[in-house]
Structures are given as C-alpha cells and as structure tokens.
C-alpha cells in the first residue's frame, strides 16, 4: 500500500512542478491572489509532495493529505484541512501524554474560515486569528518548558503541519484592514520571541527528535516574522519589499526539503542506533560515518551558516529587517535594532542546540551497547537518504532557481516555458545588495579543495590512533563499559553554561525564590481582588452597571486601537 501512496505523491510532485514551470495542464490550476503577492500556494505542494514521498507511517500520510487540502482548497476547505492536520497530530501515537490544549486553535480556525469566507466583516482580526490558528501547526509557543510530556517529538507530520500553517498565511487576503502596521509590528515582535523560546526548547530537550521539534518551531517562528514584515510592507505600500518578503517565504518553504531529509535521517538513525535519547547516544560519527556526514550536512543547512540554504534565509531576513520602514525617527530605529538583537540571540541559542546535538550524538563514545552496535545502513537502504539530500544541495546552491520555480506557480499557465533563470542571485528589497550562494559554495569548495590537496601532499603518514584512556585519563570503570555520561560532554551542559554565564548559581536560586514569592503574592492579590469584585456580583448589587461599564470600556479601547 505504502509504495502506491508514495507513487501518488510522486505524481502530485510532478504535477506541481509542471504547474510551477508554467505548463498548461488540462483543466488548469487557478492561481489565487494571496497574502504573499506573486506566489501561488500550489508551489507549496512541491515540498509537501517530497514529504509525502518519504513519509512512512499512516499518521504522517494522513497529515500530508490534510496539508494538501489546506494548500489547494479555498478559504474554508483550507481551514478544514488545517484542522484535520491538527487533529492527526493530536491523536497520533507520538503525541505527548500531557496533551497541549488546541481548543483555541480550532476555534480560531473556525473564525478564520468565517472571516475569510465573508470578506470585509472582520478583516482587522484576521491576522490575529491566523496567528492563533497556526499556533499548533507551526509549533509556536512562548513557553520554554521542555518536559518530554509537553513536547511532541519531530516526525514527518510536523512538517506537513508546518506547510499547512504556511498555506493558511498564504490564503489570507491582502490589502485593506488586513494590512496594518500595528499587526506587522506585533507579528515581528511575537515572531522574534517565539524564535527565541523555540531555540531554547531545542537547547534543553533531552531527545534528538524533540531537539528537532524545537528547531522546527524556530522555522515556524520565522514564518510569523516574515508575515509581519509583509504586513508592514503592504501597509506602507512598498511593493519591492513585499516581493522580497514573498521570496523569503518561499525560501523558508525550500527549507522544508531540509526538514524532509532530516526526518528521513533520524528515522534511519533510530532504526540503527535505538531511541534518540541524548543520554544514551554517542559516537555515531565513528560507528556510522556516512549517515553522520549526511546528518551533519542537514544540520549545517539548518544552522544558518554559509553556504547552504539556511544562510540564504538569514541573509534575506536581515535585508528585509534592515529595509523595514523606520517611521522617521530614532524611536523607529531602536525597535529595528532590538528586533535584530532578539533574532540574533535566538539564532545563537539555536546554534548551541545544534552543537549540542552534534556533540552528544555524533561525537564521543557510545554510552550503551545498543548504540555501540549501530552501523551504516547497507546497500539500497542508504540510497533514499542520499537522494533526499540532493534537492537540499541544489536549492542551497541555486536558490534563485527554486524561487523561479515557486514564483512560476503564481503566474497563469502559458503553455510552456521555464521560470526566469537568467539572474542567479538573491536580491535585497532595494536591489542594491546581491548574494550569490552558488559562487559562495564554489569559494568554499575551492578553499576546501586547496586544503585537501595540501593535506594530501604535506601529511603523507597517517596519524597513529591510541585509546583515550592511555593518555593519563582515569580508566573506564568496568561496570560502565561504554563510558560514563557524567564524564563526557553531557547533553544538558550548554544550557547550564549559558545560565552560569549570565548569573551565578547562588544568585540564580535567590532570583528564582524571589520570582516564586512574587508570583504567589500576585496570585493571592488577584484572587483577593476578584473576590472583592465578584462579591457585589454575587449579591446582585451592581451587576448591570459594572457589566455595562466594562463592555463600554472594552469597546472604546477596541475603537481607539482600530483607529
């Protein structure tokens, strides 16, 4: 059954590619005028189809089907598809025992469907509704909690959920009250904060899949930041910036290829080395060098370091933020700098999470016999992973081709032809700065090649390998043949070192006590105040007037905010 479903997804991928290339299909595909100008949501079918092809479980495939509905459907069916994906994610066997409350997401999806179906009634609220509705799909949360009961481990269905969330943002109408600078600023601030908390969750998680779930949440937060930037650009009538934001959005969609590849890698790794609990792994770089190399490429692409696709996304995002309208004063520049600062801190934490993953999983020695028995998959088993990395490398080297392909879906079918491929480089919103990832890759390859030749010529003798414990370190205890987790670089250390760097342990504990005391005090005060306020309510003394005044005040605040 699974091969047939995969073949179906391959057909979907092919059809989506043909549509993107401008080939007129029988019946055609009508491009919608979406929130992101110049792009058709059909383009999202390409990464989704890749995910569908490499998905294994039925829940993953069901989520992919829901995401396909979210992409191809109109306002109401897309919300239904997104709701379906949310339901699948909540009811899958990988869902955490302590269920995350997704009731607000579902209510927001309902309201969003109503709002987009009856345009003009509640346009001002649509971005907020979309934000709440995509909260669970994009993995957004302000909470830094990392308990295994609270976070869902990363699976292919999370990728489908992310794509469904992106499709919802694409389907949001453009212009009118939807484009408002206040929503733009709010979304940017929220996106930066969400990026930071997602990175922190990735840094503190104790499981490889949950680390990846945190990192995926960071990608979802970037979608929110880009949505905010698009809103600002539309509100200030900056078409170049809108187009640039749209291209950045499509680059983030290109990162889905990386996520699909990583999902495949961790599945194979889990099959070979057992559950990806960080305290039990280690030494996979030696035990399975080929798969570890592929995993390192995927992590590099997600890290934002040159020259892979993550770097292109960071570069475009930086240019977009720098091109943000400043409001004509120093007070307008400071938020830009603070947004960059928040984004940079989140990026730094994300990088630490990746280092931690490499340190604990790929480096060191195996900590359990199960892990020590791991080896590279043999023969054909490795080919799907190798094939999955090829699109990542192609998109990283030539992102402009990917963007041309994606933008082709936004234009009407013209029978035949290719997207514009003449200019291979990423342009900033003002067109002054240009990045050539292909040439950067060439430079890195040339530097690496020179060093490899130097190494080959200058170091003819291979180095002698000795056991680590012979160099003066204490011998490995016999009851822990595979190494003591306490003597190796532990998985929880970076987070502790970050906290230690900011403040000492004693001070931190004192602050925590103060925080707990303050929180208890606030809770008691609020309870006391509520009791006092509700006393006349209970006695039915000022029930009507209080309600009326509260409602009037709320209405006035809303009108003042609305302008």
């Amino acid at each position, binding site marked *: 059954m699974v091969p047939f479903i995969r073949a179906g997804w391959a057909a979907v991928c092919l059809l989506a590619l043909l549509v993107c290339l401008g080939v007129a299909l029988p019946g055609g595909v009508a491009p919608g005028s979406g929130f992101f100008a110049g792009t058709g949501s059909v383009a999202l079918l390409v990464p989704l189809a890749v995910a569908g092809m490499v998905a294994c479980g039925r829940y993953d495939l069901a989520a992919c089907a829901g995401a396909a509905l979210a992409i191809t459907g109109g306002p109401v069916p897309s919300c239904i598809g997104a709701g379906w994906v949310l339901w699948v994610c909540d009811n899958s066997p990988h869902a955490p025992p302590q269920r995350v409350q997704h009731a607000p997401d579902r209510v927001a999806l309902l309201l969003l469907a109503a709002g987009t179906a009856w345009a003009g009634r509640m346009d001002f609220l649509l971005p907020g509704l979309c934000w709440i509705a995509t909260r669970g799909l994009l993995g957004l949360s302000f909470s830094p909690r990392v308990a295994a009961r609270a976070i869902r481990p990363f699976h292919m269905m999370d990728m489908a959920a992310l794509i469904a969330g992106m499709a919802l943002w694409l389907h949001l109408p453009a212009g009118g009250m939807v484009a408002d600078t206040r929503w733009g600023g709010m979304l940017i601030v929220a996106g930066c904060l969400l990026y930071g908390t997602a990175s922190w969750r990735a840094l503190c998680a104790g499981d490889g899949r949950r680390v990846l779930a945190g990192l995926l949440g960071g990608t979802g937060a970037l979608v929110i930041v880009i949505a905010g930037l698009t809103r600002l650009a539309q509100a200030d009538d900056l078409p170049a910036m809108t187009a640039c934001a749209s291209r950045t959005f499509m680059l983030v969609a290109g990162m889905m290829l990386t996520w699909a590849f990583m999902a495949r890698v961790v599945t194979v790794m889990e099959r070979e080395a057992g559950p990806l609990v960080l305290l039990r792994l280690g030494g996979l770089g030696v035990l399975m060098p080929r798969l570890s190399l592929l995993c390192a490429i995927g992590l590099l692409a997600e890290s934002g370091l040159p020259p892979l696709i993550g770097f292109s996304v960071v570069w475009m995002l930086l240019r977009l933020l720098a091109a943000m309208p400043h409001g004509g004063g120093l007070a307008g520049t400071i938020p830009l700098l603070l947004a*960059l600062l928040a984004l940079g801190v989140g990026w730094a934490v994300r990088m630490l999470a990746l280092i931690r993953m490499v340190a604990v999983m790929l480096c060191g020695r195996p900590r359990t016999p199960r892990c020590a028995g791991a080896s590279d998959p043999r023969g054909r088993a490795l080919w799907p992973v190798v094939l999955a990395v090829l699109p990542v490398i192609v998109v990283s080297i030539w992102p402009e081709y990917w963007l041309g392909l994606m933008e082709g879906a936004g234009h009407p079918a013209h029978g035949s032809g290719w997207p514009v491929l003449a200019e291979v480089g990423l342009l900033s919103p003002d067109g002054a700065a240009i990045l050539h990832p292909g040439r950067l890759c060439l430079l890195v390859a040339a*530097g690496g090649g020179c060093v490899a030749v130097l190494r080959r010529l200058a170091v003819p003798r291979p180095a002698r390998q000795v056991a680590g414990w012979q160099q003066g370190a204490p011998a490995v205890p016999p009851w822990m043949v595979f190494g003591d987790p306490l003597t190796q*670089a532990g998985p929880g250390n970076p987070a502790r070192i970050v906290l230690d*760097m900011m403040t000492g342990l004693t001070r931190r504990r004192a602050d925590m006590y103060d925080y707990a005391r303050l929180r208890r005090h606030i809770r008691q005060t609020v309870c006391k105040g509520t009791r006092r306020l509700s006393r006349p309510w209970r006695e039915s003394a000022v029930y009507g007037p209080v309600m009326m005044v509260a409602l009037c005040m709320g209405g006035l605040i809303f009108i003042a905010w609305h302008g």
Partner: protein
Amino acid sequence: MTLSLVLLARMQSLLLLACHTALVVVTVPLWIGLLRWMMATMDGARSLPDPASYWRLLRRAWRQPGVRSAAGAQITAVAPWVALAAGLGAALLVPSFTLGMPGGDLSDLLAVGGLLEMGFLALVIVSLAAGLARPGQAGLRTAVRGIMIQPVLLLACAVLGMCLPDGTLAGLVRQAHVADMNIIRVPLALVAGALLLVGVTESSGPDSGPFTIMVEDLAGPDRAVAQYARDLLVVVWMMLARDLVWPESVMEPDILPRSWLVVSIAAAVGLWMLHMLVACGCVAAMQVFIVSGRRQAARRGGLALLCALMAGVLLFAGRGMG
C-alpha cells in the same frame, strides 16, 4: 583586443589574490606572536615572549608524529582541516591591501562572519570528538562563550547596511575612495570593536587557556593545523576590523596601471602592516584592560552588544545632524 584585456584583468586579479593569500598566510604567526608579546608587556610580565618563537612552536608541532585519540578519530582527522579551510575562505573575502580579487563582491559581512563562525565551530568539534570530559567541557564552554557572535554580527551587518547599500567590504572600500568617511567612522569603529570583542576570545598564550585543553588529544600535524587555524581566525577578525576602520587605505586595482606598480603595492602592504600592528595593540589592550578577570565572557558579550547598538544609534544621530 577586448578578450586580451579581459584575460589581462583576470590574470591581474589572480595575481593579486595569490599575493594577498601569501601575505596573510605567512604573517599569521607573526601577528599572533606580536599580539602575545604586547599582551605580556601590558600585563607587566617579567619574561616577555619572543614574537618569533611561535613559528618554532608551530614547526615543532608539525614535525611531531601524528597521534590522535581512537574515539572519534575520523572526526578529529578532518575537523582541524575544515577549520583551516573555513578560515582560508574568510581570509580570501577580506581585502588586505587591494581590491580586485576574484570573489570581491562576495565579501558580505554576514558571509565572512559565517565562515569565521564555521571555523570556530570546527575547532570546538575537535575538542568534542574524542568524548573525553576535560576537552569536551572546555570546548562546550568556549562554544557558549562565543555565541554572542550571532547577535553582534546581525547588528553589525545592519549598521553596515545603513552606511552603504550593498553591505560588502568591497563596496565600503569603493565608497571610501569617493566619499568622506569621517561621518561614519565612529560607528564603524564601534562595530569593529564589537566584532573583535566577540571574535577574538582567547590569545593569552600558546600553552594556557581553554584552547590548549581543547586540543590536548591531538599531536602532530593535526595539532599544528588546529593551532594555526585558530590563529588565522583571529587574524581575519583583525583584518575585518581594520577594513571597517580604515577602508580608504585599501587600494583599488584600476590605480595600478596608472602609477608605479611596485611602489604602490609596497606602500599598500606597508600601510596594511602598520594598521595590523595598531589592531594588535588594540586587541591586546582590550584583552588586558577591559575583558580580563572573572565573568569575562558575560562582560565581553554585553560590551560587544552595547557597542553594536551604540553604533546604530550614533549612525542615525550623525545622519540626523548631518
């Protein structure tokens, strides 16, 4: 005729690239030796290190037989060379004495910083590869102390993007030859200081500090390469800072045919060496007087962030007044 001109220009750019690479690669131990000598002098050390001794140290490490820990040997065998390649790639993008090298338009500050970060992380991986506690902890601590590179780099790129449209070092140099740089020199100097604060983390001596612990499982050419790569990264950060502060001292290649070729190149190289000497002094003073002592990592990161933010504010204020 046109083809021959194009070929000539290509050859000239390749020649300049070869000169630039040779100059940077050969002088790295010299700058590091001088940096350590200056730090020792400012610190009031009784026995000052010989600036040329670092050459001998590297040579001795290179000649030793190669030994590495069996655990993670495949990673240890590659990671120092990856760091060297990343550092070399970054060095190719940062102009030393002239523009006009191939890949000059790639000299985006974010790309250069990203490559330097990649080299730094490769060195951290060296320490983690064997899975031993002491080097691993030192590596993790170093990685955590270096994480402020990202926010500072983003802010620095934003400030540079406000100064000039294309945001590359080559663009900055070209603008410096046609416009007055004094208006934006202070913000750029602040950006350079911020990058030096977060980029140059440890240079206290060849046999001390966390880096020595990080590479204690290596011997032979791999160790020499790791040490050299670390020093190359420091020198590239200093070159970057120098280019931000004195961009007009970098020559443009179209000047070459119109004047005395050798004299021009010699003058530009001399100016570069002088500026690098000043940069060494600044870094040494920064290391000794500003960010020494306990909690230096947090202070270093906070100061760097403050410098970068101040650069943005000053740039805006300068524009408003101008």
